């Protein structure tokens, strides 16, 4: 058990300022940010547990994550729960950072992880006020740190969040690598892929993870049984070239996409995507599986979604029970399907894991 407890003496007052001028008082935690300023698009997440998986999820590249649950860090962190080689988020906002962890699985404090991986944070924030503000105005850029309000406001307004930027380029792997050793062969596009997804795919197949930039011909040359389109950060409309590549793959090989992968598949199929007011970020979103009518409680993390009625060649298979947002699609004539949410969980409920089986069946049927 760690005993380094940061007590009041070490408190470093800090501010969080949103681009619309809202100011929140708190204290600095985690890594020091260069000249006391960290910026990013501020989003909230309502999970009660799973902070480590969230923080290390590449889909959060460019974003600052506010946790609605006040106590964060209680059970520490362990390498086992990392969703990627390092966090890509720009910072975290919490009400209360655990002073001491307690769990047999943990080998480090969350705060230690933040410092080690260079993620700054701010604690003591009225995160409920922040959440309700973002709920009403939509997620927006913000800046936090130990410097003065004016500087932070300027930084916040200078930060253009994830809009119009190809975030995938920042997170995708430079070189291909392989995981798993199943019979089937899967090529997985890395747009910011999560380790838990690889764990699941690895049970079905030998998986080669490839850069977002790899061309269709290079992929097909590997004669895969299936192609997987991973989750990832940012605006699907800004991911350069990938939709085109996917277009070439559709019909040639069974395809399964998750989150950003889902949006890109839809884009390739000619659908439009749009930005949600404040996105879906949590572990408790009910999704209806239209084929059975049954409900899955799902883990979600996305700001963009596929626009209803813009899909010609595919059927909607899943919808979000709360707001009707499209959560899953399946092509009518070719073997390709995708979901907006995270069936692999990590963090979150396991209700939708059957989708990996469906991918396996699809691969076994072939094209």
């Amino acid at each position, binding site marked *: 058990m760690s005993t380094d407890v940061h007590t009041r003496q070490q408190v470093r007052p800090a501010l969080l300022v949103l681009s619309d001028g809202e100011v929140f008082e708190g204290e600095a935690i985690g890594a020091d940010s260069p000249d006391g300023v960290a910026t990013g698009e501020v989003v909230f997440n309502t999970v009660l547990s799973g902070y480590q998986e969230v923080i290390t999820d590449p889909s959060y590249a460019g974003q600052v994550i506010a946790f609605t649950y006040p106590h964060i860090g209680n059970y520490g962190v362990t390498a086992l729960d990392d969703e990627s080689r390092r966090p890509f988020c720009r910072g975290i906002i919490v009400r209360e950072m655990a002073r001491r*962890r307690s769990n047999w699985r943990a080998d480090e404090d969350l705060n230690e992880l933040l410092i080690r991986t260079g993620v700054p944070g701010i604690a003591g924030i009225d995160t409920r006020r922040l*959440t309700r503000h973002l709920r009403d105005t939509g997620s927006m850029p913000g800046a936090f740190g130990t410097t003065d309000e004016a500087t932070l406001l300027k930084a916040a307004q200078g930060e253009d969040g994830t809009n119009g930027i190809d975030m995938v380029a920042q997170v995708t792997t430079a070189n291909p690598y392989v995981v798993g050793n199943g019979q089937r062969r899967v090529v997985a596009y890395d747009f910011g892929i999560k380790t838990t997804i690889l764990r699941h795919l690895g049970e079905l197949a030998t998986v080669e993870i490839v850069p977002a930039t790899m061309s269709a011909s290079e992929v097909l040359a590997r004669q895969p049984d299936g192609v997987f389109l991973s989750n990832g950060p940012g605006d699907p409309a800004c991911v350069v070239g990938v939709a085109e590549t996917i277009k070439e793959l559709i019909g040639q090989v069974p395809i399964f996409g998750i989150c950003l992968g889902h949006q890109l598949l839809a884009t390739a199929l000619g659908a439009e995507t749009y930005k949600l007011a404040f996105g879906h970020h949590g572990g408790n979103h009910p999704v209806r599986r239209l084929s059975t009518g049954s409900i899955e409680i799902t883990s979600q993390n996305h700001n963009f979604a596929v626009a209803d009625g813009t899909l010609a060649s595919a059927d909607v298979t899943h919808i979000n029970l709360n707001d009707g947002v499209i959560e899953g699609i399946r092509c009518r004539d070719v073997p390709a399907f995708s979901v907006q949410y995270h069936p692999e969980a990590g963090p979150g409920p396991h209700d939708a894991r059957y989708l990996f089986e469906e991918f396996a069946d699809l691969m076994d049927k072939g094209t």
Partner: protein
Amino acid sequence: MPRRDDIHTILLIGSGPIVIGQACEFDYSGTQACRVLKEEGYRVVLANSNPATIMTDPDFADRTYIEPLDVEVLTAIIDRERPDALLATLGGQTALNLAMELVERGVLERFNVELIGADATAIATAEDRSQFKVAMQEIGLGVPPSAVAHDLDESMEAIRHLGLPVVIRPAYILGGKGTGIASTEDEFRQLAIIGLDASPISEILIERSIAGWKEYELEVMRDRADNCVIICSIENLDPMGVHTGDSITVAPAQTLSDVEYQLMRDAAFACIRRVGVETGGSNVQFAINPEDGTMVVIEMNPRVSRSSALASKATGFPIAKIAARLAVGYTLDEIPNDITSKTPACFEPSIDYVVTKIPRWAFEKFPGTPSVLGTQMQSVGEAMAIGRTFPESLQKGLRSLELGRLGLNCDPGEAEFDALDDDELVRRAAVGTPDRPFQLEAALRRGITIERLYAATRVDPWFLDQISAIVEERAHVAAIGFEAMTARDWQRVKRLGFSDAQLAWLWSNFEKTLTAGDVRSRRLSMGIAPVFKTVDTCAGEFEANTPYHYATYEDTDEVVETDRPKVVILGSGPNRIGQGIEFDYCCVHASFALRDAGYETVMINCNPETVSTDYDTSDRLYFEPLTEEDVLNVIDRESRFGEFVGVIVSLGGQTPLKLAGLLQEHLVLGTSAASIDLAEDRERWNSLCAQLEIPQPAGGTASTAEEALAITAHIGYPALVRPSYVLGGRAMTIVYDDENLQRAMKELSGFGSLGKEGGLSAERPVLVDRFLEDATEVDVDAVRDATGEVLIGGIMEHVEEAGVHSGDSACAIPPPTLSAQVISVIEGYARAIAEALEVVGLINVQFAVREGQVFVIEANPRASRTVPFVAKATGVPLVKVAARVMVGATLAELRKEGFLTPAITSGHVAVKEAVLPFSRFPEADSVLGPEMRSTGEVMGIDRTFGLAFAKSQMAAGGRLPDAGSIFLSLADRDKAAGLIVARRLANLGFTIAATVGTAAHLNENGVAVETVVAKLTDGDSSLPTAVELLATTKVNLVINTPRGSGPRSDGYDIRSAAGLYHVPCLTTVAAGLAAAQGMADWAKHGLEVRSLQEHHQAGRGEQLELT
């Protein structure tokens, strides 16, 4: 799937009287169910013997049977009402067990009634501990290694291979009754015997002890389309070994990684599916080994439970309401989440605050019982607190308990723990007791390490560290000092839950003593006031429109301001003996009545079990402690908008009454604080009675033994000694001579359990009254309006004589024996007192009638424990009337409105009987006295007093026999009356057994005594002892009145033997007489059931609608 329309009439079984392990939470769930099912257009038939519940209000069901919860009775009800379905999963263990009996006896089949919610197989799989384990192993879930035994030999055999320590747990029991942990073979033998006896099917499970593991609960819901969701996760602060009902519990789980939590979630779903609970809520308990994460299932309750009530209040997700809808065919996705109204109920609530539940015990009332917590639940109530962080909610929770503590120490109460040396302190903290949280704080404050405390207590290091945060903050602000506190410092210390009173105590010193008021005004002047956040099931993700709030120290406030006139109602806090569900009933009724009259009602309470803390009972709910600071915070906030009519303090028992004096005069609605004080202040009250020429028992007040002796020298013996400012006759004793009196005074002045209640001092003198022997006690509940009209709501004649606390004695409406002349004197006195106290609203006056002379014992210008009973007996909604009167209506106006109708006095008799928890405290003597010890009550209603009394006994679990043998053992002063009882029973064909002295008296007077029984003391070995007699179960009823008192007298052995062998035992000859009458009428008429609606209609002479 839509609502089922193949069923029309649904029978709902309530949970009966409040007992340890089964309290208001089932009134909350049952009331919700009734509402929903009626909304859905079903015909609802309700059976519940508890008159103090909201659900038994005639307008919550189409037919309300306040009848004993007994298979025979339910069969009669089913026969009469022919329901299509029985919903038994909302009435606790009681309803579940009854449903099983109805199935086993083929009753449901005979009348083809469908068991909805959970079917018989599911119930059996969950409730039968061995079946359950097998089922869990089938689906690959871990369970502690165990064996099942049906007798002692099997039991001893079991521990040969299991080893010790083990836990013994009977099948089909509630609240851990008869369970325990045994570390030695002797302990084991004893527990096995008790356990086998406690189980209705004499089956016990012997299980390897995993005491010290972490304990968790998940609240699961399932619909008939097999959708499953988790509503809430709960982590126990006290590790395995302390019953969840006796543990401090926290929601959500704090120290589980998501990986572990999701596995637990999967396990809970697998469990509910395997057990086969078709629809509704269930509660699954888990234990986790903190060393390696090994997870085992402890048990599953296939019904809503205490924890589901807690989970509902903790998350805002109304489990019982939803469960009822699911039971009639809806699926989760078809039901809207009425908190957000935008989203469906098919989701898993996310919360952005921490909820802490802390139990409240009553050990001080059961001398001889060790106040040690174990696998058997012993608490009588609980408080819940909401804070943004654990430290905040913990401190709020502790001050909500109203045990004189201001929070987690930082108050005078901590001295007790600071006095101990380190080892002793740690040793004590290692044992689960009510003091544990305070011991932990004291230990951490003196620098004992978290590692050492964890090793000793197994309380998770995370919780210990959170307590350390409180400790550090205390040191910090102590160093800064009152004067130097900056706004940031104030905000920070308040965020950790410190109360103004704690800080005042901390900052007070020799030069200067601060009051909570000083701290408050300085704090406010620094601009530090709480904001009120909302409980919204979704952590702010969606807009919520349900005004369910808690105070915390943050940036923004969420109270939606309105301009309607509003009334604040102060609730009654955690249940305790003497103040329970009756007062919640009163607060809820006031809220309903005022809402209907166009007021906006604002409820403040901290008891998660209650209907009053249901978010849609009032227009706004503040889930807050009932202390000066917390209540003033709400009043300040509410005063900032709209018209503030005032605060109702007289419906929640002593709790809000104590706060009346702290409120601005004009804010107190109804009877003024001054009048309340006049009735409480002994001296002034006496002179008032003198002035009104109303006789009182002679007496005086004393703060020393000498003064007390002086008084008795003047008034004579026996005398009743009682401390002032206590509830439920706390520590009252009857003394027969100087020696007893001196002992009593010594006990009071000493730092006994009374230390808490304030002990003895000049400000808190004891009252010494002449004790009126063989007097009949009478309770009167009345309402007076501002014009001076007084409505006598009900006159209750007690069965037991004065000297048995009003709360513990049976009573009847209308009075069976009082003469018209005495009644009119009583009414006259009650009116005069109400007038003199200028009561506006309710008043309760207690009288003792002796040889035709009426004495007044006390008057309480507030709602009493008995008003719900009176309302149900007479059909007059007494509290609703009082509430309207308190906001200015006159009785005349209410009559015109048709709101107040004449009382129903003919056609039936209603008897209220108290239910006592002695089975939980085997060491305590079951003889009744002036200290109240009952946890709940039941009502028997029928054509004659005898029948109603017989029903009340049946409902209270002491069914009177209709044949067999009666055993009498009477104190000399009772022998005359006892003779009458014996003669009546002999005429009914009962055989008589009696102890030597009693037998002699009966024989002399021509009543044949079959068996003469030896007193233990005069060991005449030729005769059987009472205990032997009872052991051989030849006795069907015991009537034993105490000779003196104290564990040594043989009366004690008789009563405890009766308890052990489940023979009904009456401890007053008055009850004996009533019983004789009951058995006589019973023999003539037999069992008949009738709904409250029918009783009332018949009483009003209306046409009965036919079924």
